[in-house]
């Protein structure tokens, strides 16, 4: 089988750092959010600290990967995301990537407001918690679709190889991304 490179090392690192951070925050966030989990786990102050510093570390790690990695390649990808038409990524993947980036920024902003609002009324907004919760629900919708297509759906799950090894089969690329891969 012949292979073609689809994702660079920087892109893959960015993806997995994002995924790891998201799952850490999802788990700790659900423990803080869902009463049954709060009761089961306890240790709220510790979980809260992990959630806050995990969030700060998550964004910092993403920025570091972008700065230390292939910046030129990432800019090319960003320019490609601008055009909502199929290329190396299809339109759904582009919308997913754009919304994921916007949600990360909004998660960070609302999370910081929640954290500092606890100590200072200038940062306290009654709707901050609604935004943070709304982002959780919206992210879960995106994540469910993303995981289904990447892990379960037979026609698309080969794409996971691209995000782990960086390469996909030429045959698969030709069938799914003809505007990107034409040998």
């Amino acid at each position, binding site marked *: 089988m012949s292979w073609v490179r689809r994702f660079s090392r920087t892109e893959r690192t960015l993806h997995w750092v994002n995924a790891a951070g998201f799952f850490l925050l999802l788990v700790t966030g659900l423990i803080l959010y869902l009463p049954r989990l709060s009761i089961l786990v306890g240790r709220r102050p510790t979980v809260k600290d992990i959630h806050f510093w995990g969030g700060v570390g998550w964004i910092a790690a993403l920025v570091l990967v972008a700065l230390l990695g292939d910046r030129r390649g990432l800019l090319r990808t960003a320019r490609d995301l601008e055009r909502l038409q199929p290329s190396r990524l299809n339109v759904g993947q582009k919308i997913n990537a754009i919304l994921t980036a916007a949600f990360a920024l*909004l998660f960070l902003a609302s999370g910081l407001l929640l954290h500092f609002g606890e100590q200072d009324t200038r940062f306290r907004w009654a709707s901050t918690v609604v935004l943070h919760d709304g982002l959780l629900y919206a992210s879960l919708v995106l994540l469910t679709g993303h995981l289904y297509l990447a892990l379960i759906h037979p026609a698309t799950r080969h794409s996971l190889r691209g995000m782990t090894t960086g390469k996909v089969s030429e045959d698969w690329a030709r069938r799914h991304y003809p505007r990107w891969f034409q040998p």
Partner: protein
Amino acid sequence: MDGSEPKRYGRGLFLATVAAGLTSLAWGKPVWSRVSAALSPAEGLIPFVPTSGWRIYTVSGSMPSFDPATWRLNVGGLVEEELVLSHRELLALPRVTQVSDFHCVTGWTVKDVHWTGVRITDIFAKVKPTPEANGLQFVSAEKPYLDYLTMEQALLHDVMLAYAMNGEPLAREHGAPLRLVIPEMYGYKNVKWLSQINLVPEAQPGYWEYLGYDRDAWVGRSNGYHS
């Protein structure tokens, strides 16, 4: 390919999403209140909000546990007669019920909570506060949580010591077996896991007030909110 430059919608989508999110800090809560009010008839059918609107906040590593055989409520301080109430004696006091909204200072609200419990005046009838008592200290079994009310605040018509919520004995996470309920103030004044009430010369800052929260936590007109 027709050769024309494809539309650049990606940046627009990103900026619109961020703008919608940031502006929702101004409109999010009122809109969400309307949405949840519209969905409430379907509650039970659609587990849209798995928390029923509640979040469980604690300040220590674990929640106090409740044993009806050993639990006691101590009432002391500036009183003529100190009181030690067992759980059975608590339930034997005149019972009152009320429906009131519960507001958290972080922004969430649970509407129409059905509370059952006792009025503080019925406790006062037993302990007889002295004339010097102008405040009440509410001590939680969750150390080091405590908070205070002035005498005037504690005697508001809808303040109660609640031992049941929505027809069920108070759940552990809501402060079993007894919590303070003062609907006109934010949740942090509604001390959970009550173990002791002390009559004091005047109200002092409580747990969150030491961390910068307002001592008089009126809903909508304290802690930076102006409704």
